């Protein structure tokens, strides 16, 4: 029962100066299927999609959409042919409402005025079709990211798109929102819409995708049915070698208590958080997005001015009023948002690595010792295996995994005693993930205390020895990682206490 092919890309080759980004890549998409496009960062997934929608010109190969060979000059032409891309960064206008966004530039008019009655009616029709429950009159800025994504999808459907490309659609959604998105994807399939699904999360691929195409270093590795493969095989295809396990076997050596948080509250962010942290352990913090995990970390790191409660550090009460105070005392927080809060993209690798310790590498107490700075950067480039032509390369030119290693180098350069990792492996490839896990083992071996915040439950379960679970700004309970499972965490994370 060969289904009708809506899209075929054959032998696509694209060369950038010095790099072959795509080398004879094949990709095909059938009507009403969800087809995962997998690969590590830099494997060529985005380039392939950019070639598809006309942003990049291909050097070789052909693209056939619904039986017709096409040559899109720009995204507008691709859109007219029924192709829509839902980007990671949503492209809606915050101060317009849902209906105005969906039909922007295509509004029915009465003379020069917008026919609002018709506009809302049309919007409701589209939203109903997708089974989405959003008020057409709500302003985009008041919606959460999940709902905004629904609006973006509704917009594409209203433009009669029948090929949807979703680029990491779940990267900033809560588990609940992800469930809603998956239901929506099922309904899109019923409408015979074909979906290209780009994601790093393999569990999702198995949950909703029919087929998988894997790319590696710009080359086509293979195409398999999800029903005929498993995670290990896909990882092997992606990285080109067998990774024994996704997670290393961790050896914890909990020693003396280094940090104790007592009744810490931040208005509107954290309610009465208390916990303690030992040297040589990894304390996991789980919870849904918005449960206050990040805020708890930031409160300890001195980001919030208004807070009550006490923080004891090495047995003494410590006042932390700014990140500078925290870092001076040996506490470092790695942000979940590497681009907005971690890196200075326009500066070099060396500039980014040295920024927290710049004042310790001075000549004559005044001038930056550039030789020492270079040495520092080169040490971490080597230790953490950062792939960069030189320490002078601008960070914005590195891949996600290597960018993350630069932020971690910055943190390590301060020789911290307490490290808070917030989603340290988000959006980075399997190989780099494994390297970061190994680095955490090195840290606890040296007696550093680690807090790990993560949305990926397997990560929390495999890497920590104790787990705190948060819900609605509160710590709901503590679990022993050896005995806990995903279900136990989710119970607490959704507000059901264990007792």
């Amino acid at each position: 029962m060969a289904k009708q092919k809506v899209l075929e890309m054959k032998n696509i080759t694209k060369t950038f100066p010095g790099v072959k980004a795509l080398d004879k890549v094949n990709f095909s998409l059938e009507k009403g299927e969800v087809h995962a496009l997998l690969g590590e960062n830099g494997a060529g997934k985005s380039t392939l999609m950019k070639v598809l929608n006309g942003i990049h010109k291909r050097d070789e190969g052909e693209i056939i959409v619904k039986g017709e060979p096409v040559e899109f000059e720009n995204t507008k032409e691709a859109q007219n042919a029924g192709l829509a891309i839902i980007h990671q960064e949503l492209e809606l206008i915050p101060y317009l409402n849902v209906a105005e966004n969906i039909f922007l530039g295509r509004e029915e008019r009465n003379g020069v005025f917008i026919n609002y009655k018709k506009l809302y009616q049309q919007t409701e029709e589209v939203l109903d079709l997708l089974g989405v429950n959003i008020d057409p009159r709500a302003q985009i800025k008041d919606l959460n990211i999940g709902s905004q994504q629904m609006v973006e999808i509704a917009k594409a459907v209203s433009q009669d798109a029948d090929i949807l490309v979703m680029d990491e659609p779940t990267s900033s959604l809560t588990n609940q929102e992800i469930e809603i998105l998956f239901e929506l994807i099922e309904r899109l399939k019923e409408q015979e819409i074909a979906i290209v699904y780009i994601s790093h999360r393999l569990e999702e691929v198995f949950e909703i995708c029919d087929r998988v195409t894997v790319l590696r270093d710009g080359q086509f590795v293979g195409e398999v049915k999800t029903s005929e493969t498993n995670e290990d095989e896909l990882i092997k295809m992606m990285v080109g070698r067998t990774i024994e396990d996704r997670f290393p076997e961790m050896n914890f050596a909990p020693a003396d208590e280094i940090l104790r948080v007592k009744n810490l509250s931040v208005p509107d962010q954290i309610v009465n958080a208390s916990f303690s942290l030992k040297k040589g352990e990894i304390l996991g913090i789980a919870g849904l997005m918005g449960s206050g995990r990040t805020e708890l970390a930031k409160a300890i790191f001195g980001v919030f001015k208004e807070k009550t409660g006490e923080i004891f550090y090495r047995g003494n009460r410590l006042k932390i009023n700014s990140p500078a105070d925290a870092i001076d005392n040996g506490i470092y927080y790695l942000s979940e948002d590497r681009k907005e809060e971690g890196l200075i993209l326009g500066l070099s690798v060396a500039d980014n690595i040295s920024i927290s310790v710049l004042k310790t590498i001075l000549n004559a107490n005044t001038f930056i010792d550039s030789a020492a700075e270079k040495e520092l950067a080169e040490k971490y480039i080597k230790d953490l295996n950062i792939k960069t032509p030189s320490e002078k390369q601008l960070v914005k030119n590195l891949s996600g995994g290597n960018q993350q290693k630069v932020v971690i180098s910055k943190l390590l350069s301060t020789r911290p005693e307490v490290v808070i990792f917030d989603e340290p492996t988000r959006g980075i490839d399997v190989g780099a993930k494994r390297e970061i896990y190994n680095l955490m083992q090195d840290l606890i071996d040296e007696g550093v205390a680690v807090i790990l915040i993560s949305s990926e439950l397997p990560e929390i379960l495999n890497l920590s020895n104790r787990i705190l679970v948060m819900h609605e700004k509160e710590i709901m309970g503590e679990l022993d990682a050896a005995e806990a499972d995903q279900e136990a965490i989710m119970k607490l994370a959704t507000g059901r206490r264990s007792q």
Partner: protein
Amino acid sequence: MNNISGSIKDKSFLEILNKFKTGIGLLVLVIVLSFMSPYFLTIPNLLNVVRQVSIIAVISFGMTMVILTGGIDLSVGSMLAFSGAVAAGMMVNSGLNVFLAILIGLAAGTALGLFNGLAVAKAKLPAFIVTLAMMTVARGFTLIYTNGRPISGFDETFRFFGAGYLGRIPIPVVIMFILLIVIYILLKKTPFGRYIYAIGGNETATKLSGINTDKIKIAVYALNGFLAAVSGIILTSRLNSAQPMAGEGYELDAIAAVVLGGTSLSGGSGGVIGTIIGALIIAVLNNGLNLLNVSSFYQLVAKGAVILLAVFLDRKSQQQ
């Protein structure tokens, strides 16, 4: 392999060309003008050009730092006038010693800049609004302090700063060069300078890296007030009088020099070497058009067109 190394070589040549493009623009302008006017490429004329440029250049060094942090300062012209008037008033009305009067003038400009910095960093007000308000307030202070009339009748020693010479080089040019070198080193070689670039690139990330970003921003605005005051002293000395409306519109010339010099208006990249070249391009253009007897009305049009063209070319080259 050969192919790849060849393309890398080409790339680095283009990069070098790109890096020095403002300098090349200035060079082309100088060459063209030297053919069009025989007087242009003479020592007296060139010294005249650099003397004219020195006052705007000193302001634009401060403006470069402010813009590098992602800010803007519209009040430099007014701060210049106020500082000049205060120094002049201290000498003429209060009978203070020349150096003491200069110090008080410099302190006055620094204090206004400090206020800008506090309002931007601590009260979190937009720099555009804060300095727009300061532009009017400082001008008002100047008019109040001077009663709206010029202050003149200085001691001969005061004339040195605007009209004196070191050998054949005018003192304002000497001051400009010293400040250029000091600020260049400050920006490129000290943590303070690095933090300025970092704040302009990503303020949140800089703060989370343990840097007291508020302190750096306040210092930058204060330093900018100080540099406006230095210009105010030079201008007052050169004109031999403190004019209440001195420096009007200088903020736009300074911003133009910074932008022409390739510093990004959103902050994070650029520097003072570009700025001095940008200031020189404007000055050379004005001087050349004067020598060619082009009316000053047309000069305004030419200046605007050059700024637009330069920024357009800059954008083009960045997109590639």
